[in-house]
C-alpha cells in the first residue's frame, strides 16, 4: 500500500532488554520498509512501548542493533537520531504557545526566524490548526493538542515517526476521526511510521503491516488481513477479534477434491485445507463469528450445516450477536444486517452453516494460553 518494498528504512536486529532480571524484549528482529506504517500491537506489558522507546533512544537496549537508513543508531542519544516521537500524553511544553511548540525543533536547529514562521504555518495547515499558533497549550482541546504534538514531531521531517498510543486519550468519535487523518497524512507525506497501540481494531484499520507482540516476543508480522484470516497461533486468533475454537481430528483427506473431513465435538466438518495435513492429525479450527450464517429453514446447499438452539441473543443495531448451543458446544455467531436476516429468539431452533474455507491451527501452533 504505497510503500516502497525494496528499501528497509529501519532494521531491528535481535534486540534484548531486561529490567531487573525480568526480560521484557527477547530478541526482536524486524525490517520496516520506507514509507510503511507498521503497528506494534499487543496486551499491556508485551514490550511494545519499550521497543518504541529503544528506537527513539529513550531507553538503552541490552544487546542488538537499531539501524536507521543504513546507519547504526542504537548508541546515539535521542537528539542525534533522525526519529521523532509523539508521546501518549503529547508532552507539549506547557509554557509555550502552539507555534513555539511546533517551532521548537527548528529553533534548536538554528533556522532563521522567518523560515521557522513559514514552516510552522505550513505544519499548522497540515494538521488543520490554521490561526491557532498564538494559543497557549492549555487553551486547546485534547484533539487539538494531539495535532500540535503531531505537527511538532513532523516539523523536522524525520526519517521515522514514532507514535506511542497517540489516540488513547481521545474519546471514541474523535479517535476514529484522528485515526483516519493520521493515516491520510502518513500516506501523503510517505513517512515511515511506527504506531503503538493496544487496540487491535485500531491496528487493523490503520496499518500496512501489524507486528503482534506478546511477552517480549514477536508472535506474527503481516498485513491486517493475514493476521485476521490466518493467525499463526491461538493467542493471535483470539487477540484480533472474537473467535470460535473447535478441537478436531483429521479423518479423511481427499487430495483430488482438495477437501478434508474433520471430526469435531459438533460433528463432522468439511474444509478446504490451506496446507498439507495428514489423517489422524490433531488440529484446531478457527471460525470467526461473522462467517457463520443462521437460518430458520434448512439451507439448500448441504455442506457443514448443523442444528443448534439459541442460548442468548443480543441485538446491537448494526449486528446481532448470538450464542448458540450445538451438541453441547457454545458457538458465537454475528449476523450483520439483522433486519434482513431476521432476529431470533432465545430457545429458537436454527440451522447454522459454516463455510468450507476454515483456518486450521496445527498442533505446534496451539498454545496453552488462550486469552
Amino acid at each position: 500500500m504505497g510503500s516502497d518494498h525494496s528499501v528497509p528504512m529501519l532494521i531491528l536486529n535481535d534486540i534484548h532488554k531486561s529490567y531487573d532480571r525480568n526480560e521484557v524484549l527477547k530478541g526482536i528482529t524486524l525490517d520496516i520498509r520506507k514509507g510503511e506504517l507498521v503497528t506494534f500491537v499487543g496486551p499491556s506489558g508485551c514490550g511494545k512501548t519499550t521497543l518504541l522507546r529503544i528506537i527513539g533512544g529513550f531507553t538503552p537496549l541490552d544487546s542488538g542493533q537499531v539501524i536507521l537508513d543504513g546507519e547504526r543508531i542504537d548508541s546515539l542519544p535521542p537528539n542525534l537520531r533522525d526519529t521523532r516521537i509523539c508521546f501518549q500524553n503529547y508532552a507539549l511544553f506547557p509554557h509555550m504557545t502552539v507555534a513555539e511548540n511546533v517551532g521548537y525543533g527548528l529553533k534548536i536547529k538554528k533556522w532563521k526566524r522567518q523560515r521557522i514562521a513559514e514552516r510552522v504555518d505550513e505544519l499548522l495547515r497540515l494538521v488543520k490548526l490554521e490561526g491557532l499558533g498564538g494559543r497557549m497549550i492549555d487553551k486547546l482541546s485534547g484533539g487539538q493538542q494531539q495535532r500540535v504534538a503531531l505537527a511538532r514531531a513532523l516539523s523536522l521531517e524525520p526519517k521515522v515517526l514514532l507514535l506511542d498510543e497517540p489516540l488513547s486519550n481521545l474519546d471514541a468519535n474523535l479517535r476514529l476521526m484522528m485515526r483516519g487523518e493520521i493515516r491520510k497524512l502518513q500516506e501523503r507525506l510517505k513517512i515511515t511510521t511506527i504506531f503503538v497501540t493496544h487496540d487491535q481494531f485500531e491496528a487493523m484499520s490503520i496499518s500496512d503491516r501489524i507486528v503482534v507482540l506478546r511477552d517480549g516476543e514477536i508472535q506474527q508480522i503481516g498485513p491486517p488481513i493475514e493476521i485476521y484470516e490466518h493467525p499463526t497461533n491461538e493467542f493471535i486468533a483470539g487477540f484480533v477479534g472474537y473467535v470460535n475454537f473447535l478441537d478436531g481430528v483429521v479423518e479423511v483427506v481427499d487430495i483430488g477434491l482438495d477437501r478434508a473431513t474433520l471430526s469435531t465435538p459438533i460433528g463432522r466438518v468439511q474444509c478446504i485445507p490451506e496446507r498439507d495435513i495428514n489423517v489422524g492429525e490433531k488440529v484446531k479450527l478457527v471460525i470467526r463469528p461473522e462467517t457463520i450464517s443462521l437460518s430458520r429453514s434448512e439451507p439448500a446447499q448441504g455442506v457443514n450445516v448443523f442444528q443448534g438452539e439459541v442460548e442468548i441473543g443480543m441485538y446491537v443495531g448494526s449486528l446481532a450477536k448470538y450464542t448458540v448451543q450445538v451438541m453441547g458446544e457454545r458457538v458465537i455467531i454475528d449476523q450483520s444486517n439483522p433486519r434482513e436476516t431476521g432476529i431470533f429468539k432465545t430457545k429458537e431452533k436454527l440451522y447454522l452453516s459454516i463455510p468450507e474455507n476454515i483456518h486450521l491451527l496445527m498442533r505446534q501452533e496451539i498454545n496453552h494460553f488462550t486469552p
Partner: protein
Amino acid sequence: MTIAEFGNAAILGGRTPFLAPDTYTMIIGEADFEMGSVLSVVLIIPCIIIFFLHNYMLTGKKFTTIGGKPVASEPRKMTPVVKIPFLIIGLISVLAILISFGVVLLASFTKILGVNNAIVFSHILNFESNRAIYNSIQVSLIAAFIGAIIGALLAYVIVRGKFFGRTFIEMISLSGFALPGTVIGIGYLLAFNAPPLKLTGGMMILALNCVFRFLAVGVEAGISKLHQINIEIEEASADLGANFLTTFYKIVLPIMFPAFIAGFIYTFMTAIVSLSAVVFLVSPGFDLAAVKIFDAAVYGEIGVASATTIKLVFIVILNMILLNFLTRKTGFDISQKKGV
C-alpha cells in the same frame, strides 16, 4: 522540634535550665566551647531519633498530591455534640495567639506596658531596631536567592538523577531542618572561625547558615513541582534535538519557576525570623532582627523587643500575601509542601 526550642525557652524559662539556652550560655557567656559542643551532641540525639522515626513511618506511604479529577467537596453536617467542644478548643487557641500578638502590639507603643502606659513612638523608631531589621532583610534576601537556586538544582538532581547515593543527598539536604539551630550555629562557629575558611564576623556566614538550614524548603518546593512535570516533556525536547543544557534552560527552568519563587519566599520568611543558629554567628555592630529581639527581651527592653517583633510580623504577613497571590496566579499550590 520543641525539644530544641531556643528563643521561647530562653526568655520564658526563668531559672529552669533548658538544653538549648544552656548551650548558648555555655558558649557565649562562658566561652566554654568544649562543654557547648558536648551539650550540642546531647541535643542532637533526640532530634536524630525523631528524624529517622519520621522517615521510617513515612516510607512506603505515598502521598498523592494531585489525584485525577477534582471533586467539589461538600461541607458535612456535624452534630452539636462534636461541633461545640471543637469550636471552643479552636476559639481558645485562636484567642491565645491573638492575645499574644495584641500584647506585643500594645507593648511597642507604650513606654513600659503595665507600668507606664503612656503612648510613645520611640520603640518603633528605635534606630538599632530598624538597622537590625534592615540587616535581617539583607541577609534573608541573599539567603533566599542562593537557597532557591541551590534548592531547585538539588531538587532536579534528586528527582531526575539515577545514581547511587541519591537518597543520601536528599537526606543531607533536608537534614538542616531536622537538626536544632543551636547545634548548626555552634557547628558553623567552630568550623568557620579560623582559616582557611574564616567566615565569621560577616554577613555571608549568616546568609549561608540560613541557606543550608532552610535548604529543605527550596528543595521540597522544587521536588513537588518536578513530580508534576512528566519526564516525557524533557524527552520530547531531547527528541527535537535539544541537548541536556538546552532542555534544562528552555524547558525545566521555566516550568520550575513558580517553585523557585515559592522556595525564595519561604526561605526568606523562615530566615528572617530564625534565631537559634544566627545568635551564635552575629558579630557586634551587625545585629539581626531576631537576635535584637532576643537581646532586648533579655535586657528587659520589652518595648524595643515588641516593636521589632511587630515589624518582623508585618514583613512575614506581607510575604504570605505575596505568596498567596503568586499561588493563585501560577497555580502552584504551596500546601503541597510536605514533611517537616
